[in-house]
């Protein structure tokens, strides 16, 4: 328990309304999705309750965050910040740690339409930002976590693929600047802001700290607190007088689909033709969406209930959909639309594919276009058992993504046969291209039952085996390389990078107060993971 004088000092910073040390209140921060996986892999019961913080504080400004962090340094207390906070990595991992809940910092500070960037605070959500950006004909990369999650968290500290990645890239590449409260309490503004007052560039002057604090996958909140960031925006092809309108009732809504938008599901007989077609579609750089999944994924993608998804499966979707990817084109004019549609048809013809929409196998409704934009679509996978998580996660090439899918299939099948994870025949994947096909992200969504300890354990062991397969087969970065043990297992395959990571951690966090449980500690074995 925190000493009274420390609790009083924290209260003085944020006010009595914005702090608690009540065990019941703190349990809502100890509980996190995927703690059951972490707990299993640490030899504990597969519970979603993890480490309970000593207190939770809700700062309202950067200055308050700074004061909290300085107090933590003074009294050797660890801290972890979260925004909407979904996932084990959002919680604290060690005793004598406090949770910094950034919910009160929720302003959109600037939308600079001309230079195409927005400056946001941590608790602005994807849906909120997009709702405002649409009024300017703009869009940002709203990561797959969903419309209720924080784009700041994704851009500064996490991975960040999305359903619109073919158009909007991934979050790490779109970060244009950040206000960063270092683990010491010093404030650094990264990128162009500090010398121009605008946030148009993530680099400069001269050098960039983006690679230091986030690199490919981010520090998962283990290297200070980000209190503002600027992110890159992209054009959204909608008419000037168009408005985001939704009609209907839950769960079947109708969206005001803009003109010149169309969704395709391009299906191919095998991986080889799929790969070639997927490269070409990405290379054309004309899609709002270009992503692949399994037939089971397709069943839930364009339906609105679990029952409807299952009906799709039982109606023969598994036979009709082989290797497919979904493409959404969105154009400003009829001519642009016609050109894009023509290119899609040409690629389809070249590789002998079929459009499953054209053939009536699946029917994307207007609301599914909206869900694609807002990144609600990934959440559909929760419908089967109220739970899924992804393994692998290599950010590499399209061909590497396909290779991972192939390597994964027999591993996954083994756990399906144990009846601990959902049965997608081992085919469950999700691939999206970035940056004209130069890069791609694959993850393997896997359904399990959160109310069954056997299923939680089974999923955890499956995830561990996937991580090992990534290392053994050089498949790229595993999805959950978090904490010392994982970094140390992966490091020898990749130039022993953890020793450099630890130098960064030691330099920026000399007292080790920024909870390293899902990042890396300055010395091996220091963190709890």
């Amino acid at each position, binding site marked *: 328990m925190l000493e009274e004088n420390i609790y009083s000092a924290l209260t003085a910073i944020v006010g009595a*309304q*914005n702090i*608690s040390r*009540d*065990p*019941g*209140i703190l*349990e*809502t921060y100890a*509980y996190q*999705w995927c703690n059951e996986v972490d707990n299993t892999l640490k030899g504990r019961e597969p519970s*979603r*309750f993890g480490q309970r913080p000593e207190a*939770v504080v809700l700062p309202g400004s950067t200055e308050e965050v700074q004061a909290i962090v300085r107090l933590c340094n003074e009294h050797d207390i660890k801290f972890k910040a979260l925004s*909407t*906070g*979904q996932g084990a990595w959002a919680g604290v991992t060690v005793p004598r740690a406090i949770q910094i*809940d950034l*919910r*009160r910092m929720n302003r*959109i500070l600037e939308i600079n339409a001309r230079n195409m960037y927005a400056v946001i605070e941590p608790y*602005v*959500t994807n*849906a*909120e*930002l*997009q*709702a405002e950006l649409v009024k300017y004909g703009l869009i940002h990369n709203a990561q797959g976590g*969903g*419309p*209720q*999650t924080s784009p700041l968290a994704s851009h500064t500290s996490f991975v960040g693929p999305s359903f619109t990645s073919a158009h909007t890239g991934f979050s790490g590449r779109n970060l244009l600047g950040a206000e960063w409260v270092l683990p010491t309490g010093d404030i650094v503004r990264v990128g162009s802001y500090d010398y121009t007052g605008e946030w148009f560039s993530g680099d400069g002057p001269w050098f960039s700290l983006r690679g230091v604090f986030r690199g490919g996958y981010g520090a998962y909140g283990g290297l200070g607190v980000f209190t503002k960031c600027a992110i890159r925006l992209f054009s959204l092809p909608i008419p000037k007088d168009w408005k985001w309108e*939704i009609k209907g*009732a*839950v*769960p079947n809504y109708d*969206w005001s689909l803009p003109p010149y938008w169309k969704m395709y599901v391009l299906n191919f007989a095998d991986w080889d033709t799929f790969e070639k077609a997927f490269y070409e579609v990405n290379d054309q750089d004309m899609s709002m969406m270009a992503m692949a999944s399994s037939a089971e994924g397709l069943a839930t993608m364009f339906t609105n209930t*679990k*029952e409807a998804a299952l009906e799709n*499966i039982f109606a023969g979707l598994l036979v009709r959909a082989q290797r497919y990817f979904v493409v959404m084109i969105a154009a400003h004019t009829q001519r642009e639309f016609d050109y894009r549609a023509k290119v899609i048809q040409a690629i389809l013809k070249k590789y002998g594919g079929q459009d499953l929409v054209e053939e009536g196998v699946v029917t994307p409704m207007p*609301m599914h276009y*909206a*869900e694609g934009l*807002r990144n*609600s679509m990934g*959440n559909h996978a*929760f*419908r*089967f058992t*109220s739970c899924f998580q992804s393994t692998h996660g290599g950010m590499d090439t399209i061909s590497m993504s396909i290779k991972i899918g192939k390597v994964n299939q027999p591993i996954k099948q083994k756990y*399906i046969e144990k*009846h601990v*994870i*959902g*049965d997608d025949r081992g085919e469950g994947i999700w691939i999206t291209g970035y940056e004209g096909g130069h890069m791609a992200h694959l993850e393997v969504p896997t359904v399990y*039952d*959160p*109310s*069954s300890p056997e*299923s939680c354990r089974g999923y955890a062991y499956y995830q561990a085996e996937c991580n090992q397969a990534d290392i053994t087969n050089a498949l790229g970065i595993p999805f959950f390389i978090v904490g010392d043990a994982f970094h140390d297992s992966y490091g020898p395959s990749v130039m022993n990078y953890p020793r450099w990571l630890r130098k960064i951690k030691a330099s920026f966090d000399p007292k080790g107060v920024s909870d390293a449980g899902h990042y890396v500690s300055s010395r091996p074995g220091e963190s709890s993971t």
Partner: protein
Amino acid sequence: MMDRCVRCSKCKFLDGILVKSKKYSQVCPSIQMYNLHAYSGGGRVIMANALYKGRIGFSDEMLDALYKCTNCGACEVTCKMYYDIEPNEIISEFRATAVESGVAPMPKHKKYIELVDRVHNPYGEEAEKRQAWLPKDVDVDEASQTLYFVGCTAAYRRQEIAEATARILNAAHEPFAILGSDESCCGSPVYRVGDRKRAIDIMKQNVERFKQQGIKRIVTSCSGCYNMLKVEYPRFVDFDFEVVHISQLIEKLLAKGKLKLANPVPLKVTYHDPCHLGRMSEPYEKWEGKLVEVLALVYMHDPPKPIRTGARGEYDAPRNVLRQIPGIELVEMERIREYAYCCGAGAGVKAAYPDFALSTAQNRLEEAESTGAQALVSCCPFCSTNFRDGIRERGSPLEFYDLTELVARSIGGGE
């Protein structure tokens, strides 16, 4: 079920595709006011889970988070879009457990429950004054099998609604009885704060009274009473009465030509969906069957189980009636129908936490003002009270009307 919560925070917001602006993206008044995760639907599910697992006991702060909730059901609508969880149901059970454990309800709740016990209304008013609202020129038919169940708030605090309702029924030549001083609280304020045993006793007493009176159909002008009688009573007691909200009845009377809206009411209005008439009003349909594993770990109900999603609440009848009043222009707010933002008064909040109730009303009033409407209209005396308080506190230019008041004006006799 509680282990299925993934702490995703969807329970705090409108479903992603329904968000049209940052300003009106939130759907839970409690988390919007108090910020700590415990004050969200998901937070309460986690606390209930921790209590159930024996990790924690009740504490004052926990009870504060549990009771600073209007039980409006918005979290349940947004959660069920993706998950098989019922946060609002869990909150109700959590409160019942708190009461059974002797740590709840809150002191203000205990006070009004004592009044309900003693004088059959939470305001402490005398039973004899219950029909003081009744004008001499309104016809009541004591022999009618249709009961106008006035409810405590319309009887004692929002008498204009009771009067307007009675005049509408008279104008349509729909005979109705009232229970007068024998009418008792429907039990809603008792039930919503978790005193389930006492609430069931009230339900039984009321049902007995309805039977003695030979009632077949019950008309309410209060969404809270409607919800209790339509949705909650059948869960706990034998209940064989038709329950109709006045907005539904007016819609039917208009369709049959039994009611004519002749007088213009020149007003630009926006409509607030009461939680208890809207998303919370879907009945619990009895289901007997089994769960069948149709794919590994994926279960379906056999036969299909009716799910309360909020889609089948009563949203259209009030709007259809409003649109038929000459001179009325209806404009909509951003958060409507199953995603309507609560008025802030329900589930014991108005009594125990008046500041919270008022703050929530002001949030909703700001949204109503943004439509350019001159008046906010709703269908619930309890919403009416809280909005009128909010308008006064805020100095809002909005007027507030219950739907019945506008209908009464249009058929004549309202002013």
